[in-house]
Structure formats: C-alpha cells, structure tokens
C-alpha cells in the first residue's frame, strides 16, 4: 500500500517534470518556427545591409540596417552605463558592507523591486525626465532609459556572483596588505570576470530586445544614428511598425526583422553559456 503510494507520487512528479520541460522546448521551437517560416521569405542580404529607401514601408527596396545599428548602439551604450553603476554597487554590497547591514539589504530589496517594474514604466519615466529637461527623443535618452532598465538585473546578477566568492580568497589578498579596493579589482573581479560578463550579456540581451522602454525615448529614424542627440531606430520598434502595416510583404519583413533580433539574442545566449563553462573551469 505505502509502496504503491510512493510510486504514484514519483510517477506524478516525473510526469510534471517532463511536461514542464516539454512546454518550454515546444514554445521555443514554435516561436522560432513561426519567425523562421514567415521571415525566411523576406530575409535577404539587403535586409541586413541597407537602410530603408523611399517607400520601404510600402514594400519597396531597402533593409533594417538602421534598426540593427541603432539597437546595437543603444543597447551597447546602455549596457556600458549600467555596468559603470552595477559594478560599484555589487562591490559595495559584498566587500564593503557588513553582511547584515540595513543599507545593503535595502539596496538589494530596491533592486529586486526595480527588476519587477514593467519596461513601459521605465519608458514613461524616461519620457517624463526628458520633457522636464526639454530633451527630444534621442539615442542618448533611449540609452539612459534602457540603462535603468538593465541596471537591476545586472547589479543583482553581479551581486550573486560576488556573494559566492570564497572568504579564503579575500583573506589571502588582505593578508598581503591589500585593501578592499585592490582586493576587489585585482583578485575578485579577475576571479569572477566570466561570470560577471554573463550578467552583463544577459542585461544586454534584455536591453536590445525591449520595445516599450524605447518607444517614447529613442524615437525612430530611417538613418543610422550619427549623434547621441538625434533619434535612433531599434529592432523591436522596426518589427512593431512593419507588423502593423496591412501589406503582406512588409509584414514578412517584420518577421525577418524578428528573426534577426532572435538570432542576435541566441548568439548572446550561446556566448553566455560558453563563458559560464569557461568560468567553471578556471576558478581557483
């Protein structure tokens, strides 16, 4: 009797595990299949290498290089900004602050809350600030907004990485007369660099794929951005605009653009996995 019940329990749990796993894999495959099937038709070299020419959104010649470049500029700049803030936060939380320090706990809590804030709210916030300072929608405004969006994710990822650094390693550096800053930069960051980079790349992935935060803040243009203060196109918005039109060819290009964005994110995920593996091998 008892034996049977345990078997049923285990069977039930196994089914649940397999089911959940299948759902994950199936969704990924379905999403990829949709954008590949629909996007492949419109996918060509021009998409990657040309900016929209006259009548592009009505089905004429051109590509989305403006959005590809804009997305990389914007997410790249935002990621650098977020990094400049996240690094010091993570180092403060783990090296300088006492373990149960109230400030540190409050900072962590704030980051967790910020992480959960929907990106449209960041967009609205960015817009408010822009209006206040009389700025136009621009690459810079988009960067700042996306940096704020990326910050909680990146800072918490780095925080978790630094939290795992063994006490002995810090002590080894302290014992040689190094102070906390030297220990952080020369030993701890070095030891955890691949894992920290993983956090950076994940945040980059979030930033490059987000539409809502750039909707009001970055604007849109058919040209490759040449100034921080001019507008910048982004892939998510390019997808959005193209899918909105009633013209089938343009919709297909929307799927092709989605395919491009997905490939970029896929590439980032692969790099993250490689880095993680490398990290596991090299840590002392």
């Amino acid at each position: 009797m008892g034996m049977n019940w345990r078997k049923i329990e285990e069977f039930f749990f196994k089914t649940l595990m397999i089911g959940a796993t299948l759902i994950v894999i199936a969704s990924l495959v379905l999403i990829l299949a949709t954008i590949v099937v629909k996007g492949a038709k419109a996918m060509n070299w021009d998409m990657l290498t040309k900016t929209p020419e006259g009548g592009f959104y009505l089905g004429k010649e051109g590509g989305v290089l403006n959005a590809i470049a804009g997305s990389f500029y914007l997410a790249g700049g935002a990621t650098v900004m977020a990094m400049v803030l996240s690094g010091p936060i993570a180092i403060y939380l783990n090296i300088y602050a006492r373990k149960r320090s109230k400030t540190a706990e409050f900072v962590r809590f704030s980051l967790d809350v910020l992480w959960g804030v929907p990106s449209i709210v960041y967009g609205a916030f960015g817009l408010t600030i822009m209006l206040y300072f009389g700025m136009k929608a621009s690459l810079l405004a988009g960067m700042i907004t996306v940096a704020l969006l990326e910050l909680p994710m990146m800072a918490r990822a780095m925080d978790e990485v630094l939290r795992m650094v063994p006490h002995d390693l810090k002590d080894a550096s302290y014992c040689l007369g190094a102070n906390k800053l030297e220990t952080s930069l020369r030993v701890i960051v070095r030891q955890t660099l691949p894992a920290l980079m993983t956090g950076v790349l994940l945040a980059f992935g979030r930033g490059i794929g987000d539409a809502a935060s750039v909707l009001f803040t970055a604007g849109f243009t058919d040209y490759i951005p040449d100034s921080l203060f001019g507008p910048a196109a982004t892939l998510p918005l390019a997808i959005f605009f193209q899918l909105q039109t009633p013209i089938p060819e343009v919709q297909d290009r929307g799927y092709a653009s989605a395919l491009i964005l997905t490939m970029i994110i896929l590439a980032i995920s692969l790099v993250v996995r490689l880095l993680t593996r490398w990290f596991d091998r090299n840590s002392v």
Partner: protein
Amino acid sequence: MVHIDVQNLSVYYKGQPGLRNIAVEIPRNKITAIIGPSGCGKSTLLKTFNRLLDEQEGIRIKGTVLVDGEDIYADKVDVTQVRKKVGLLAQRPQVLPMSIYDNVAYGPRIHGVRGRKRLDGIVEEHLKMAGLWEEVKDRLKSPASGLSIGQQQRLCLARGLAVEPEVILADESTSALDPISAETIERRFMELKNDYTIVMVTHVLRQARRLADYVIFLYMGRLIEHGPAQEFFDHPKYAKTQGYLSGRFIEEHKIDRELDLKCGEFSADMKIVRDEFGKIKPGQILRVTVDREEAVGEMSGSIESDGHRILEAKRVGKISWEIVAEKQKRIK
C-alpha cells in the same frame, strides 16, 4: 626580546567568548608553536596578530596586541601596514587567480614596487627562498591553480615572504601536505627563523618538538601554559598540559572547595590557604582565586612545597588568577 606582546586579550564570537584573557609574549626571531585541541582558539589567536579577524562578522576583540611595542588595534593604525608586517599563511593554501609570477609579484606591486627587472628579481628570490624555484622557473606564466597542493603551499609562502614581513604566522601550514612537502616547509622555517619571527599553529606535537623554541598551550579559549619548548615538553607544570602531551583525555577538574582571596600580606594569605587544605581530604581539589599576578607564582610554589599538586594556574579575568590544586596524602 619580545616581538608580539599580547595583553589581556579576549575575543567574543557573537557574545560567546572564543579567547579569554590571553597574556603572552612572543619572542623575536624564534619559532613559537601554538598547540591545543581542536576548537581551543589557536586560529583565532593567530588571526588577532594581523587583524584578519576584523574582516569577520559579529566579532568583538578586547585587550591589546603590541607588535614592536605598537598597539596594532589603535585607531590611527593602517591595517594594511600591519598585515604587510605580520604575514599570515593560511591553513589551506589559497592561490590567487593569476599566474605563478603574478602571485608572488602581487604583494610587492600593491606596495608600490614597479619595474620588470625589480619584480623579476623579487619573484626569483622569494621562490628560491620557499624552495619552489627549480620546479616552476620554466612556467612562471602559467596559472598558479595548476600547481600541486604542496607546491601551492610553498607558493603561498613565497608570496607571503615577497612583501618582506617581519613576522610569519603559519596556521597548520603542513597539515594538507605529504610528508616530503611538509618536511620541505619545515626546513624553510628553520632557515627563516634567523630573520623572521615565526608563530605556527600545529596539531602535530612531534612537529612542535622538532621546530619550536617556545610553546603556547591553549585549552578552551584559555592560555593554560607557555614557556621555552625544552622546559614545556620535559616538565609541563599543569595537569591539563600533561594530559594533552601524553594524549590523555583532558577532564575538567571537579572543584571540591573554593577560596576567593583578596591578597594582602603573603604569609597571612598562605595561612588561609593552608587552613582550607586542612578542610579537605587527600585527592580532593581546592581552587584559589587571587587578585594579584605576583601572588600566583609565589603561592603555587608554597603549595607545591607543602606537598600538594598544582593542577592548573591561569588567568581568568582582568585582575583574577586561579590556582587549582589537589591535596596529596600527608608526606611523612
């Protein structure tokens, strides 16, 4: 000559004491061994000498540690300078995540040494000092984590020596090593003691006998006995030391009678003590608490010459010392 002077040092872990009222002087250019059963506070004591304990959470340190006569816990003291002067070799070797070369050069670079040539010289010199040079000279640029544990321990020694400390604290530095590597390290210590003050923690009594000039015996956070090695091993004064050295189980003494003495004139005090002995049977134990350090030695001496056995004499508070003695059969 005293190098590290520990005065009335107590360490509390989250309120509960880890070390209690330790007072001891560590001689210069000698090897001092700290021994005692696991958990008695050896590592804790060692870590108070370079303020490494500061980095731990929830710890309170009371008392004074003087290195070269300077209080290392004073407000104005730069803790990185303390650690430069008093190097600590951890129980488990912990190499830094960089090349062999950079591990050794790490300390000197931190302390402002620049220039390829100078660093090359420093790295070679200290790897030789630690007896590792021959094994690694052809792969200085490869990651230190690729070395064997024994080699890593010697690398840590080289790295520690490269900052040119005056004191080397070694926490069971040979416990993770095979006998050959352990002997290599031991031999280094014997050579190094001419120029450095070495304080080592060890579980291996034979090792303490081989190496130590001076011995400190801790038991449950208390300093039980300390003295020159020869004397310490050949004529341990107290029951707990004798028990530990002979590998016997150390039991807490069952106190049959207690006497709390405000010290006055010595012969009068001694009379009170003798009266107390008169009230107990042979084999029973009397504990006398006194409030003057000088009284401890004198009184123990007199109690012994009366024919009783001193089991223990130790500091228990800022101004209190305990003598625990067992009454013996009357000697005719």
